[in-house]
């Protein structure tokens, strides 16, 4: 792997950039691998990366039915944060943030992780109680958290309308939160995986699993049978489809979630701002577009697009909080499929099938966890035992009732 740096850039400029190598190879699948990761999104690629880098398992394939990062990795609003209420969540997401902080250097690929600060606005007494509780819990979990007054919010976001339908009463700030360049995460992992010998195989859809005596032996794909010592399934909105192929049920519902960008503007919003009561979240990309998200579509679907009503449901709140955007134009809307659990927490788990592991259920908030998710999942697969940070997220919790109910805590999708 050629190291990327300002020097390699200059050197290659002199040869008209004609000598750059492929970021990753496109090999044909081998007959078998020690581990096959199904799903070439951020979480799947991160899993392969840590298998190879930290677990000494390099005979790994990542198979992807379309193009790398084409699912939710390339469709989300790129927000990264770890200000979660429950201890289990805080541990998982903060584990991820710590890995985000060194990801560009680790991968030698600039993923533009930008800790611009993330605000959760509170608009009523109930919101204040909610951020109060979460702020204290986060702080005691050793994660940064601060309360801001409305005046401090205004200082950070001069264009905000504090006196909106539900006036801003305060905010919870996580300074280490921010955004990252989502595509670069997939590409950076793919390149680093490839350099360690992992095979990245695109346009390779899974059609079934070969299971013998309750243990997975191979993955059947559109590019033939691929033998597998272990299988890690990381397929987000299609995880329940994969589970069905493997003969069990995964307690997920798949909903479209839309995102929107405006035309590019000169910088006007410097941090990420989330609001539950006036439901929209917004940040501004390094290219200048306002990146906006809202609620999921209220029906189950596998279609990666959205309906009109969410467009309208996002425009209203955006204008209420930032009325100066009235004459700004929305440039594009798109949708992804989120795999939602009943407690809005992910599933990192062994399954009824031996040597088969699932990593799914990230719902509307998986991007932020990408490196942490891959890291603990890789260690779980390598060891055959769930990593301590992953253990509470086992699918068994739906039987025992030990839910990690972030939905109940925040009373909103996150």
């Amino acid at each position: 792997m050629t190291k990327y740096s300002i020097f390699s850039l200059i050197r290659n400029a002199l040869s008209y950039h004609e000598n750059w190598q492929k970021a990753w190879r496109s090999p044909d699948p081998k007959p078998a691998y020690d581990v096959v990761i199904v799903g070439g999104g951020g979480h799947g690629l991160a899993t392969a990366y840590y298998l190879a880098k930290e677990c000494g398992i390099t005979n790994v394939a990542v198979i992807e039915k379309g193009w790398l990062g084409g699912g939710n990795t390339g469709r989300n609003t790129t927000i990264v944060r770890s200000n979660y209420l429950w201890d289990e969540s805080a541990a998982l997401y903060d584990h991820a943030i710590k890995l985000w902080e060194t990801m560009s250097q680790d991968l030698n690929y600039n993923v533009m992780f930008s800790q611009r600060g993330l605000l959760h606005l509170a608009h009523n007494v109930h919101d204040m109680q909610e951020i109060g509780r979460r702020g204290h819990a986060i702080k005691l979990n050793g994660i940064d958290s601060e309360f801001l007054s409305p005046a401090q919010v205004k200082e950070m976001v001069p264009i905000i309308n504090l006196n909106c339908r539900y006036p801003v009463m305060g905010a919870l700030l996580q300074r280490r939160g921010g955004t990252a360049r989502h595509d670069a995460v997939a590409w950076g992992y793919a390149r680093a995986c490839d350099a360690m010998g992992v095979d990245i195989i695109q346009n390779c859809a899974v059609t079934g699993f070969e299971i013998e005596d309750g243990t997975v032996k191979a993955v059947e794909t559109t590019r033939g049978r691929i033998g597998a010592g272990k299988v890690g399934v990381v397929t987000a909105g299609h995880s329940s489809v994969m589970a069905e192929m493997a003969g069990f049920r995964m307690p997920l519902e798949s909903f479209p979630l839309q995102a929107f960008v405006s035309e590019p503007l000169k910088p006007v919003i410097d941090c990420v701002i989330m609001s539950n009561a006036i439901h929209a979240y917004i940040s501004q990309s390094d290219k200048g577009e306002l990146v906006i998200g809202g609620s999921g579509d209220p029906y189950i679907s596998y279609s990666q697009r959205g309906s009109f009503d969410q467009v309208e449901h996002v425009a209203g709140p955006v204008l209420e909080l930032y009325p100066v955007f009235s004459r700004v134009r929305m440039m594009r809307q798109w949708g992804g499929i989120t795999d939602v659990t009943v407690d809005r927490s992910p599933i990192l788990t062994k399954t009824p099938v031996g040597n088969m592991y699932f990593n799914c259920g990230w719902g509307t908030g998986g991007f932020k966890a990408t490196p942490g998710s891959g890291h603990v999942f890789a260690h779980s697969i390598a060891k055959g035992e769930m990593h301590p940070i992953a253990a509470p997220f086992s699918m068994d919790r739906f039987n025992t009732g030990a839910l990690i109910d972030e939905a109940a805590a925040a009373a909103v999708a996150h």
Partner: protein
Amino acid sequence: MSQSYRIEGKGRIDRSKPIRFTWNGRSYQGYQGDTLASALLANGVRLVGRSFKYHRPRGIMTAGSEEPNAVVQLEEGARTEPNTRATMAELYDGLTANAQNCWPSVEFDVGALNAKLSRFFPAGFYYKTFMWPAALWEPLYEKIIRRAAGMGESPEEIDPDSYAQHFAHCDVLIAGGGPAGLSAALAAGRTGARVILADEGAEFGGSLLADTVEIAGKPAADWIAETVAELTAMPEVTLLPRTTVSAYYDHNFLTLTERVTDHMGPRADDSVPRQRFWKVRAKQTILAQGAIERPLLFADNDRPGVMLASAARTYINRYGVLPGREIVVFTGNDSAYPAALDAKAAGARVEIVDLRTDPKGPLVDHARAQGIEIHAGCGITGTRGTKALHGCDVAPLSEDGKSLADEPFSIGCDCIAVAGGWNPTVHLHSQARGKLSWDDTKQCFVPGYCQWPTRSAGAGNGTFDLAGCLDEGLKAGAAAAHEAGFGKGAAPEAPAVELSEEGPARQVWIVPSDVPLGHGKKHFHDHQNDVTAADIHLAAREGYVSVEHLKRYTTTGMGTDQGKTSNVNALAVMADIRNARIPEVGTTTFRPPYVPTTFGAIGGQNRRHLFLQERTTPMHAAHVANGAVFEDVGDWKRPWYFPRDGEDMHEAVQRECRQARETCGLLDASTLGKIDIQGPDAAWFLNMMYTNKWDTLAVGKGRYGVMLNEHGMVIDDGVTTRLAENHFHMTTTTGGAARVLGMLEEWLQTEWPERQVYCTSVTEQWAVCTITGPNAKALMADLTDDIDVDPANFPFLAYRTGTVAGAPARVYRISFTGDLAYEVNVPARHGLAVWTTILERGRKHGLVQYGTETMHVLRAEKGFIIVGQDTDGTVTPMDLGMNWIVSKKKDDFIGKRSHSRSDTAREGRKQLVGIMTEDPNVVLPEGAHLVNQPGKPPIAMEGHVTSSYMSPNVGRSIALGLIKGGRDRIGDTLHAPMMDGKTVHKVTLTEPVFFDKEGKRTNG
């Protein structure tokens, strides 16, 4: 040089109406009917903007909404608007516009340094650098990147204009009012079908507005006028000029953006909206949006002065503007020849560079006859001029079109009109999930199958000749109307058109130059984002081969034009690299909207006070008059507290709390959810929805109930009263009213449809005055003659009807304060009068009106929970110490099964307890967490404070909390660390009842 590029006698502009406008601080003149772009060209202004990345000088490239270069900052102040296409902005008097993305000016732009260093900034360069040292990423590198971000500037003031939304249904919606769209409207309209015809432009006619062709022996303009006149006369036809069909959703739901007043500029009159957003459900759609001309990819093809041949022709014929005096038409097909002929006729010196080695046919002959020199088999290999084009190099091409066959020669020119073929505008078809197929002859994508009732017609369907457009439009209109139930489907006969036959085209996707691709000269395909053919080669070299990777890695097609002129060219370059056919490369997904749409229009009227309407109780006017401070609870405005002169919130609440317990208090409880439940299975139903037993409840009595979700967790509570054998009045929390009704209906409709139970929300039908305190009985006796209010005869949780304060009332003996209390429900229309009367008569009983904060303190003194504050969806009734409310006798109720799950049944769950601070003056912040021993985070937490107040009646601070194993730890000492990281409060766990522990006060 005022309008020195105008062509005498040409164009549809109104020369009797000159208009003054300002561009970059300089005043210019144009005419009514101009766009900003045509007026700038008329005045010889070529340089109109700077590109995103390299800050290359750019000029006007198109005459439509596909414009990538000429995007400007329109107006200043409150009405400023970024990224407006100069080609779509109609000129009005006083229009002011400025160039974007340049500093200090578009002429001299410091950012142009990027162009000098462009060699070091290929596609995706930022992924490869700015990583060392890591500490510099945010303070330095990203700052630089962000400073370069964006095009135009966001407004900083509130938009003074209004916007509207409009719903419509129609039989046939036609997108595009060119020859095909007009024909379609005519055919459909004549059947009597309801037709909506929308076109982006100020005038109907589309490409005909720039054409010199005759239809049925008359100028095209006459045919347009006659057609529009006929359509206008049809009562069922709606004509929408300046209206873009922007999005196509499932089930033929489309959205349209109508620019109602943009062409008039800032106005004093705001009686009409600036833009109107249409939401249309169409039985049938006809997509007739025409086609967009493809630019050619040649070296340095981005100089100001390079424009589409069709745009050049539009400026000449429609606007009477010569885009240059020395024009080189660069083409591979015949469609550019009319532009050359029109330019020549308008007085320009014209030469044609034709990729075809042997162009022939009537148009070519005509051009030759007019003395236009044709350089056949040649391509442009380079251009000259920075801020304005002054010449180009031309050379014969090899047979395969990949190299030069001879040395280049120079031609002086100030305009290059390029014609690389046509792309049907298939965006809406694709948004509707219609398939595309590649037409090898026409070298373009054309619409294929679509699951919705839609058809494409005209150039948008790949039918590029006018006769075909007219014919196809008529047929589509007749067929769509017929399928919508109108007419017989037979199309009227198309009018005669005399057309010159066009010869075959030659497609050269990348025109070679004298240096290898990427070696100094740039072949731009995405002009706005500065993406070149060399960038695509780089992407392919590095493995970003998938069309989505290509787009995302190079940013091609990601500008405000969303790749309308660039995408197919980019695909062609990738296809060439991969040695594949273009359709094998695939396309990126076409996403709404077709052109960017203002948030204002999408938001419509749903703004300011209409954003989410405030709910107020019938007594609201009295609360306002009495100086209440309001709290937002759900959508409700509830009185929070009623401060008297100079009181702050704390003082007011302390006074209200004290007085309510000492004498009596009055609370507006109208916002509580109220659901009327009737039917023979109503008692059975309540047995299922609540944890306790309801079939045993006597008529005229109420009972407190908690409702669980499937996980066995508390989600709502309230008192429900049996009004009659099969008739119950349920109350819910204020915030939970809609959710609970939804849940009741969901169970009834999906699980127990055979059960006869009928639920009706009556929240807003009843106004509720809660009277509480030792003097409540005396006050009630003053208010009613026909109800015996003595608790001895009107026991706790009983219900009476009668007249209270002159209004028919239902009175419930319910108490949320623990004191003797009456909930007086009167029909909403009596609410204000009854409230006022109670306040008046209460004066002598020491009545105090109190708000939600006092309500919270009083209930916390008694340890009564608030669902959503003391619970969070993870709390069972047992966790709340309410085992008594969970029936052991019932076979089933919602949530019962989950109580046997191991984690739900285990010891040590968080339980509701009281919390007392060591210092009675310290009120813990709600949300504070308790720990066993203070220390440095991370530190194990035992639970958190859910409610916390200063209680004047207890005489100290009190708090409730959910603490692990709390019931067994009463009396234990814990610690509450504060957010400052220093302060720690010592606390003791207690029973969660602080006042009147024996419950003596309930009956006075």
